[in-house]
């Protein structure tokens, strides 16, 4: 039977080289594939370019990957938060490169990559610092900025359930970047709370079809979900 199931996170991450570009799902902690990130730190790949909405919270997950000095560049919309001390320190010391992208443009650039779109004109950011030097065009009286797709070698995402074909369903607002990153990466690795039997997911409710998913690893209930992760901050 066709199966994308890995025996563990270590096997799921096999082959990620130094210098890889990796999308990591999640908005803050919701949907962040913490167990896969922990395994990536152990795996040792370095000089990575990371694409995420944020630049790590607290000391775990993405923040721990940064603290281990594995990341040379981050592409994100909202790096500075009350608990982004790891990123702040690296940035102040000039040890990490930052590409800042408005959140909706970040999402659409990722979507465009997965959908085979060569570029798109967006009104977001027109006339601001973040559009400086970019091509603009007036269409039907409205001003737009040309943005290009954002793709990656790997995506690490988190979902609730998968079946052996890699079909995914998510939980609540933890869905966030998962579906679009899955489509935009050459190799997509999904961690899930649990794997269900083929046929157990209602096809009407599959969110990410398995064609976008290459490897699946079950991590069980995410224990870190249960303790103090709520630190409010904008976007």
């Amino acid at each position: 039977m066709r199966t994308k199931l890995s025996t563990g996170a270590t096997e799921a991450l096999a082959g990620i080289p130094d210098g890889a570009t990796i999308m990591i799902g999640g908005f803050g902690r919701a949907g962040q594939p913490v167990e896969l990130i922990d395994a990536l730190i152990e795996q040792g790949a370095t000089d990575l370019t990371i694409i995420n909405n944020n630049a790590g919270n607290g000391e775990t997950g993405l923040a721990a990957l940064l603290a281990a000095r594995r990341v040379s560049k981050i592409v994100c919309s909202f790096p500075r938060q009350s608990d982004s001390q790891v990123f702040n320190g690296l940035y102040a010391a000039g040890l990490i490169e930052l590409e800042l992208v408005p959140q909706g443009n970040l999402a659409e650039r990722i979507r465009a990559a997965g959908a085979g779109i060569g570029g798109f004109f967006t009104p977001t950011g027109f006339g601001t610092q973040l559009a400086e030097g970019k091509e603009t065009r007036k269409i039907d009286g409205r001003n737009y900025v040309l943005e290009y797709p954002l793709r990656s070698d790997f995506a690490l995402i988190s979902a609730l359930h998968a079946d052996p074909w890699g079909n995914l369903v998510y939980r609540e607002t933890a869905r966030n970047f998962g579906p679009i990153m899955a489509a935009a990466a050459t190799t997509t690795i999904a961690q899930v709370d649990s794997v269900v039997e083929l046929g157990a997911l209602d096809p009407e409710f599959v969110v990410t079809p398995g064609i976008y998913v290459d490897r699946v690893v079950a991590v069980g209930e995410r224990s870190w979900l249960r303790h103090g992760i709520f630190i409010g901050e904008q976007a």
Partner: protein
Amino acid sequence: MSLSREDLAAIVARDIREGSYVNLGIGIPTLVANYLPPGDAIILHTENGMLGMGPSPAEGQEDPDLMNAGKLPVTARPGASYFHHADSFAMMRGGHLDVCVLGAFQVSERGDLANWHSGAPGAIPAVGGAMDLAIGAKQVFVMMDLQDRDGRPKLVADCSYPLTGVACVDRVYTDRAVFDITLDGLVVRETFDTTHDELRELLALDLIGIL
């Protein structure tokens, strides 16, 4: 005498029509939620991926997978829906939301918005969804004090802070007055214990009388 933020939030809520889909930005705009009519007259959008956002959960009921754009725990109302980030921002960019309420450092008389970056040297820039929200609804409302801590007006001829969006704000709610930004100019819509002459002196902008 000027309005408290709570009173101002109640006035913004009063002006949001029943049936609207609304995004309330982080900070002061979230106060508006406390004054919206009960029931399902208004459906709240949160850009991290939900329509039908409900209030904060009871203590101990927080669900880490269910949060708002400020990364604070929220609840889902009956009828809520979840969607991914590209859909969520398409919903905004595509003009499907009726109202978005934002805070601001400055708004220009033409409706330019500055609310994402202080521009201070060494500050780590962080934009999040600010530039998307600025152009992300049929009507964009700003809630802010009319003056900054040093007494300088925040409604200005030209923004000195880095822009978030160009000519994107429709209405500005402040503690002293409410302004509509129109093609004809800045219209004073409502005042709070403040005369038009006082506003003219403070702002040094051309003001058009009450709509």
